[in-house]
């Protein structure tokens, strides 16, 4: 009971087992004075969330009767004590703070309502995701169970991989046969100066492992070709195309349509970037957009033409955004739309991309490509690469 007789109010503190008895007995208002992400991770059943900063505004709704028995708890007992003082100042007459908070409560074996399927570390790490109603615990678990393949651990792959890893994509595959070069570091932020000469897949894996131990990285230290592509992409849920050459882009398209794998495809050159999401048979494919690759002399590459480093970040993080939406199943992916970004004007333009009924790969008359014909299209000849 509040010791109102004293000149300076001292808040009543009760032990967790006492609180448990009162809660079991019924007639008690239980207030959780922590932040929303803490509340979501684990709480005492029946607790109503009133974060400390919102107490003045929200307490009346959570505890309308100022004379009712009210128990406050937080993580360790400090915030609930201060909140109880505030409530007494507001005229509440029967407030107690639970000493030791939910930590001591749990230590004493008392039950909590916890988020299922994630460890305490994961509930903490991904709390800013799970707080989003569109993501929630279910969305985070989808990310943790997702397998995403990145084609290229270079300009686009670097930021995409960093954000996917931070988000908790459980398995990230990296296809690249290159080693880190000093000229990469102006945009390939997953690598660093000490890793010059190290295979890009290995360098990226080291960075990802340091960022998030939840992520399993699979290194494919190779170039995609007609022989290995089906085997490499088959286990993955989503493919991210950041390839630096046209033959690989067409090869990936044909194989991913055959295996019905969604592809988030972006490209960058100088100050321009493009991105679209190809979901086979739901929207157009890469060949619907670009039926024919340009001849080599009209297909300038980054190494020949240059690229503003941050373009990789802008377009790579847009790719990561598309991947997360596909994995969680929210929002409107860029299916049937191409987003064009011009960095010098700082202008985004959205263009419509239609399925081509004549598309040899996904059109009305397309037949499933036999394995022997993957990569056998006449326009796979050598273009200017990388």
């Amino acid at each position, binding site marked *: 009971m509040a010791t109102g007789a004293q000149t300076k109010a001292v808040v009543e503190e009760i032990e967790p087992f006492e609180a448990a008895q009162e809660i079991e007995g019924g007639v008690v208002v239980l207030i959780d004075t922590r932040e929303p992400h803490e509340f979501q991770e684990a709480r005492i059943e029946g607790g109503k969330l009133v974060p400390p900063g919102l107490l003045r505004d929200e307490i009346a709704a959570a505890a309308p009767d100022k004379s009712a028995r009210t128990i406050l708890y937080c993580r360790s007992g400090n915030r609930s004590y201060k909140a109880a003082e505030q409530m007494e100042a507001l005229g509440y007459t029967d407030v107690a703070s639970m000493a030791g908070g939910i930590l001591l409560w749990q230590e004493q074996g008392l039950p909590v309502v916890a988020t299922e399927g994630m460890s305490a570390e994961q509930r903490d790490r991904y709390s800013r995701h799970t707080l989003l109603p569109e993501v929630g615990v279910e969305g985070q678990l989808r990310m943790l169970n997702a397998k995403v393949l990145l*084609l*290229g651990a*270079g*300009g*686009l*792959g670097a930021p995409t991989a960093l954000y996917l890893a931070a988000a908790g994509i459980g398995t990230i595959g990296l296809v690249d046969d290159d080693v880190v070069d000093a000229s990469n570091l102006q945009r390939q932020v997953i690598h660093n100066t000490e890793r010059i000469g190290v295979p890009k897949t290995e360098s990226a894996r080291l960075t990802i492992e340091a960022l998030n131990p939840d992520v399993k990285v699979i290194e494919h230290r190779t170039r995609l070709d007609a022989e290995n592509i089906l085997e490499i992409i088959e286990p993955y849920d989503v493919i991210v*195309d*950041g*390839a*630096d*050459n*046209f033959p690989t*882009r067409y090869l990936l398209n044909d194989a991913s349509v055959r295996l019905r794998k969604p592809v988030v495809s*972006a*490209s*960058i*050159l*100088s*100050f*321009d970037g*493009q991105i679209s999401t190809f979901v086979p048979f739901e929207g157009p494919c890469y060949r619907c*957009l*670009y*039926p*024919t*690759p*340009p*001849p080599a002399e*009209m*297909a*300038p*590459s*980054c190494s020949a*033409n240059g*690229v503003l480093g941050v373009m990789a970040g802008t377009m790579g993080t847009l790719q990561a955004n598309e991947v997360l939406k596909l994995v969680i199943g929210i929002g409107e992916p860029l299916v049937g739309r*191409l987003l*064009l970004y*011009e960095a*010098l*004007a700082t202008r985004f*333009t*959205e*263009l*419509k*991309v*239609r399925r*081509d009924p004549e598309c040899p790969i996904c059109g009305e008359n397309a037949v499933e490509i036999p394995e022997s014909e993957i990569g056998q299209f006449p326009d796979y000849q050598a*273009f200017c690469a990388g």
Partner: protein
Amino acid sequence: MATVRIPKVLQAQTGGQSEVEAAGADVGEVLRALTAAHPETEAQLFGEEGELNRYVNVYLNDEDVRVLEGLETAVADGDTVVILPAMAGG
């Protein structure tokens, strides 16, 4: 007058201009007005027979002219013609 948006990779052929105003009743005429003003763009846009190169995508506002009337697609005053090159940089 229509506005033709020039991709960065073609701007060397337009004297660095990212947008070119061009007159024409349809997409073909607008692009021909562009190549007349900037002859070096010709080889990028058109094949030897005068047809639009298959690897060049052209949009009237946000729609691919291939699903409209191609080069005969009518252009209204104030329309935007976007030239979109395939790019493979990663």
